């Protein structure tokens, strides 16, 4: 069962905004490289506990951060 998930967003600036907003809402997250099997982009994405997927999605959408996809890793 997946323990961690990654939230893929468009750009570093979006990821940084997401990191700030998730942490403000007490959701622990980490900036990690986008897994290569998901995207060849040189960007970063947000790694969270899988249990916080739903809550994170709500927060990011509320903050106008476009989510490309969320993958369990």
């Amino acid at each position, binding site marked *: 069962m997946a323990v961690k998930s990654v939230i893929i967003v*468009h*750009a*570093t*600036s*979006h*990821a*940084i*905004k997401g*990191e*700030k907003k998730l942490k403000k809402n007490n959701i622990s997250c980490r*900036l*990690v*490289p986008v897994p290569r099997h998901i*995207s*060849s*982009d*040189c*960007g*970063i994405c947000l790694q969270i506990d899988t249990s916080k997927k739903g809550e994170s999605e709500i927060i990011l959408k509320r903050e*106008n*951060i*476009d989510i490309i996809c969320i993958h369990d890793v």
Partner: protein
Amino acid sequence: MIYLDNSATSFPKPPCVKEAMIHFIDRVGANPGRAGHRLANEAARVVYNTRELINDFFNGDDSLRVVFTQNITEALNVALLGFLRSGDHVITSSLEHNSMMRPLRFLEKSGVELSIVYGDPKGFIDPDRIKKLIKNNTVLIAVNHGSNVMGTIQPIGLIGKIAREGNVLFLVDSAQTAGAIPLDMQKEYIDILCFTGHKSLLGPMGTGGLILGNRVNCIRMNPLKLGGTGSFSEKEVQPGFLPDFLESGTLNVAGLAGLGASIQWINKKGIAAIRCHEIALTEKLLHFCNTMDEISLYGPKDAEQQMPTVSFTVKGFSPSDLGFILDDERDILCRVGLHCSPAAHKTIRTFPTGTVRFGMGIFNTPDDIDYACSALSEIIQRKKIEIWQ
């Protein structure tokens, strides 16, 4: 030395600006969004924090709709060249700086229709005259908030309301006002706010940008610069989301670190306190100028209706000669001439010789103004004696 050229750039800066920049250069230093290592991410946080501070400062719609440029000239070019097309009609004023007029005149040659509303002798634009010019193909009203020549503060809230009711976008050039008087994108119906970091926002040169309100369809714009954004890298087309769509290449990150610090300094000090201080300086200078028959003042001549930017001429002196005497003999630094605003000088009838401009700022003191007034008085007196002799 008395620095009275804050309308060109503010000097000095609060100490925190230099400290933030040195900290970035010494301790962070990486290029944000070009790698995923810890220093690149820290640099990205620095940039994002300044984006958020700017967005909150001006009550914009979204921090990710803040686009950084190297100055407000570039921001105006991004907005105007990016947005306007042949057949579009845009309304502006006769008080604009060349950073607005030159792009507009360039676009005029490509089929953009331009209407110019003339200001009155004090430099005020009548919003009703703008309203009467709105027609079917009007897409934009673009004006400055405060004149860089004589400081006149335009009624942008009224103009913005007219733009909103006419379903026209509203662009404001805040070069002379951002950081010195309240500016709220929601209250003033501003759709595109262009700002500079290095004047009253007290940041370093090389920073500025534009904030795009939600009503602006950014994808309709043509980016001024295309290139690497650190995103969408598998494609050779510009990404279609902000801020990357309009922000290619490496940013002045050290500068943005400084700008973030200066905005926090202003937030702590309070715009009201800054405005109060600068009104007092302006009143002092205006009062002196009004007592001297040889001095002609321009603009509102009312500290409450203008920025701390005062333009004047002195009988018997060309502006450039007087500026030189002030610098060379009295250590008073100011700007003379046309101030990159031939249109404004034509409006107040000081074209082509221009004026002497004192641009006061938050770090000027009442003693600075007393000294400058005494210097002017002595220089004028000396000239009188020379004439008599």
